[in-house]
């Protein structure tokens, strides 16, 4: 009897703990913003004014809000890929390069086949973009599986290579013929055919149909990770590689697969950016989404559905940062620094989650199995597994 009551007590505490765990990223973000405020004070800037301008710019007006959602779109796509990779225990820092590859491939296809009907060309461009990203992520995945090359380092190098490839293409083979004719040589491609432009959800704003696609994909990724065998194996590989190997899962192959899928989502983000926003390949198209997407994924606790609000928040920070720079002249790089702090504090806060999980595991170890005390990323055990 006493055992029963203690178990119901521990399950109530479990719910409270989970709520606390889910709020930790919010807490980490507030602390990071506080650090940013102190920094601004030292620089002689009024932090309330700066943050006020930031949040008004991001969420205060209809135009700001639509821009925020437009920026949330590629962030969400990248973050979904990051969820898959990190869940498999592979760290994909290569978002930037994969976005570039996706954008290049989607633009090239749309420019090469200007006579295809709209819907077909859209599907083709987005698919090819995703494939190109998958290829770029796959290089790192295969190098890790086959040769044990650290994927963090290889993806960083692949980012740099993709950037140079883009510089080369936009100054040569892909340079807009009109730019050549006018002699201005602004490094950008020709405008994509009209029928490949994604429809705008609100007229005369940047908000486009890519957002719906991204949200649908978030739900699909959730189903994939928690309701399919492959998804289950990907998570098993990340939670405990040696146990997964013991259970007969080809660990390396699944790590490579996770990297390929992760790259596909980033590539799709690039394709969506060119077809939804810019309507051509331009320099600076990645906008740091490859990195900010990591922040969003961590903020959403590596859960595809958590990534949706997280992407909107961080999309808002990006939009607000530009507004802040224009209205109160505080450089937008403030937000990059704050994002870095958020990453640091969120990964550090996992310490408390793990410690409690371990304590809980000791207390009830006879009746319940504890969470795996893996010193790497914390994997919340919700999600109906």
């Amino acid at each position: 009897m006493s055992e029963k009551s203690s178990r119901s007590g521990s399950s109530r505490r479990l719910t409270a703990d989970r709520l606390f765990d889910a709020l930790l990223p919010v807490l980490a973000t507030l602390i990071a913003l506080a650090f940013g405020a102190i920094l601004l004070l030292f620089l002689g800037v009024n932090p309330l004014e700066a943050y006020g301008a930031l949040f008004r710019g991001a969420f205060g007006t209809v135009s700001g809000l639509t821009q925020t959602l437009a920026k949330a779109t590629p962030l969400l796509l990248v973050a979904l890929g990051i969820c898959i990779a990190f869940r498999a225990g592979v760290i994909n820092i290569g978002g930037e390069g994969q976005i570039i590859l996706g954008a290049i491939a989607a633009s090239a296809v749309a420019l090469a086949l200007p006579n295809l009907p709209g819907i077909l060309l859209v599907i083709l461009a987005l698919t090819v973009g995703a494939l190109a990203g998958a290829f770029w992520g796959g290089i790192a995945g295969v190098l890790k599986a086959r040769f044990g090359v650290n994927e963090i380092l290889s993806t960083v190098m692949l980012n740099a290579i993709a950037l140079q490839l883009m510089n080369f293409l936009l100054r040569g083979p892909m340079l807009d013929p009109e730019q050549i004719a006018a002699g201005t040589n602004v490094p950008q491609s020709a405008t994509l055919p009209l029928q490949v432009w994604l429809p705008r959800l609100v007229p005369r704003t940047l908000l486009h149909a890519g957002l719906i696609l991204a949200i649908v994909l978030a739900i699909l990724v959730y189903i994939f990770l928690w309701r399919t065998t492959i998804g289950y194996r990907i998570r098993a590989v990340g939670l405990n590689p040696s146990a997964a190997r013991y259970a007969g899962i080809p660990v390396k192959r699944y790590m490579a697969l996770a990297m390929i899928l992760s790259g596909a989502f980033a590539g799709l983000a690039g394709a969506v950016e060119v077809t939804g926003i810019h309507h051509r390949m331009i320099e600076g198209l990645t906008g740091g989404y490859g990195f900010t997407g990591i922040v969003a994924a961590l903020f959403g606790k590596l859960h595809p559905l958590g990534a949706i609000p997280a992407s909107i928040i961080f999309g808002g920070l990006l939009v607000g940062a530009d507004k802040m720079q224009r209205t109160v002249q505080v450089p937008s790089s403030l937000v990059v620094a704050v994002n870095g702090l958020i990453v640091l504090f969120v990964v550090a806060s996992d310490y408390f989650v793990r410690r409690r999980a371990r304590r809980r595991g000791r207390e009830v170890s006879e009746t319940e199995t504890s969470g795996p005390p893996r010193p790497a990323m914390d994997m919340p055990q919700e999600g109906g597994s």
Partner: protein
Amino acid sequence: MISELLQASVIIGILHSGIRLAAPYLYAALGETVAQRSGVLDLGVDGIMLMGAFSAFYVVYETGNLWLGVAAAIFVGILMGVLMSVISVTYQAEQGISGIGLYMFGLGLSSLLFRVLIGSVEGISGFKELPIPVLSDIPVIGDIFFDHSILVYLAYVMVLVIWFLFEKTTLGLKVRAVGQNPEAADSLGVGVNRVRYFGVIFGAAMAGMAGATLSIDLLNVFQDNITNGLGFIAVALVYFGGWRPLGVLLGSLLFATVSSLQLWGQALDIQLLPSDLMVMLPYVLTIVVLVFSSGRVRQPAALNKPFERSG
């Protein structure tokens, strides 16, 4: 065209700037070697370098005192190292991700400070060449090796210092022990986390030096993201060098010489490949090198594994 590259004066020039350009790689990669041998993968090197580069530049820009600039870079590096060790050692964060956080923090903060405190790209006069008497008079050899600034010489001295640290000192032995078998080290009374704090903070101070070498010696300028990923290559060089100072020296020289070749090719307008593709070369080379070095040398057994006393 290619024959221009083969003239004696050009070859001497390429090798001379190879030796020079290797200095920031050496500082950053040697420091990272110490951090990794202690068991901590610090991926934030590039961010620390950016902060070091800015601090050194700003101090020199305001005071004109070069050594004060170096001290500032080291000090700021140490601060960044403390931040990294609290997060990664005490709070046992996943090191690959915390390093990216530190990188973003350094990237954003150095740009913010630069824009608020300086505002535009300015030049300063940095360290001057200091030819070593007698040795610099040796033809060819003297020109290549003995006509550099003091920070460049010091980078090579550090190779010996780190070698000495690992091979001949108790501290070096402790660093190696906590990176290889922290449980055993702990049972012998070595403070595992304390030694790791030392490894990370020392590495960060060296990364600060690497940044200073860029901003007040090699380039004498600061701008956003001036390192351009150099810190990440430095981390790769640690793998390439098999976690040994002499291996790191070899890798740094190889990379710097390739970069120098590419810069000279650009300057002399020799187009072996389009210049955007030439710029890719060091990164492609890094990947190739990682393929060949992975699995060849065993990494510190406890690298990237936070330590917790069991029980």
